[in-house]
């Protein structure tokens, strides 16, 4: 079962024809997104499944004794949000999408109960040798309007 505890189409071939190919990606256009509320359960299931075991994510008493003041999510939880906040028609789900590298900047930590919104675009697209690349840019904010993190990455698009 996935960490969101909800039905999620794991067959990425379904709806494949609904997703933008490299030719159809328009840099600057917003991707369709939805807000996601991260419960403590989701945060901790995510942490366990990617190998995080720091008490900052699990032990309320310990977390309260640190400057964090309570349990937070591991910074890398945008790995989940990139899929949880997008729809099944999003081109990041196209089979054969190869991740070529990412950079992320972290501002405010995510806390249990936060509702996160994503703003995502393709920032750029280009061809290098015979490979088709898309550059994606994401901004995540919380329910207070604070920036949680921003990230940019490149994928090699399937042909």
């Amino acid at each position: 079962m996935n960490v969101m505890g909800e039905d999620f189409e794991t067959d990425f071939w379904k709806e494949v024809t609904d997703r933008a190919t490299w030719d159809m990606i328009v840099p600057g256009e917003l991707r369709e997104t939805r807000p996601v509320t991260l419960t403590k359960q989701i945060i901790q299931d995510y942490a366990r499944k990617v190998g995080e075991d720091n008490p900052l994510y699990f032990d309320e008493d310990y977390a309260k004794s640190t400057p964090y003041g309570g349990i937070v999510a591991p910074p890398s939880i945008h790995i989940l949000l990139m899929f949880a906040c997008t729809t099944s028609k999003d081109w990041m789900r196209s089979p054969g999408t190869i991740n070529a590298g990412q950079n992320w900047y972290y501002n405010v930590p995510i806390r249990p109960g936060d509702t996160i919104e994503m703003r995502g675009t393709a920032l750029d697209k280009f061809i290098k040798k015979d490979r088709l690349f898309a550059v994606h840019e994401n901004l995540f904010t919380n329910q207070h309007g604070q920036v949680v993190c921003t990230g940019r990455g490149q994928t090699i698009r399937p042909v």
Partner: protein
Amino acid sequence: MSAQENFDKVQPGDIVEGRPFTVTTDTIQDFGDASLDYNPLHFDPDWMEKNDFGGTHFGGVIMHGMQNFALITRTLTDWLVPRGGYHRRLETRWIKPVKLGDTITPEATVSRKNPTDSGHWVQFDVVVKNQDGEPVATGQALAEFRDTIPG
């Protein structure tokens, strides 16, 4: 302990050793369930055997590249949190695909300290190596030593 005192304790050359991680079908399934990334690159060995991607023939399923990212993050935050450091940035490049049975280990090295107008910043060089000592991912990270957590 103040941010300044914590910052003073970090020295260029300090090494942050990560824990080894062995890739299995179970770890790939867990990562898929954590990330909702069920791309057949990571789950369909027949499809991977039959197809090339960007001119590369992988010949079998590959680990999610972002598993590297999560393991590097764990390595840095486990070291930073007790030292009063706040993980600010991570930039990664994937060098080589990671396959079933591979054991990968992240390592970060403090490369430079940068005091700014109002901050205390530390740069790290990051590398993830496989069991043969080959780099599978490289990157740079940035931490800030602060008295409070942003937000």
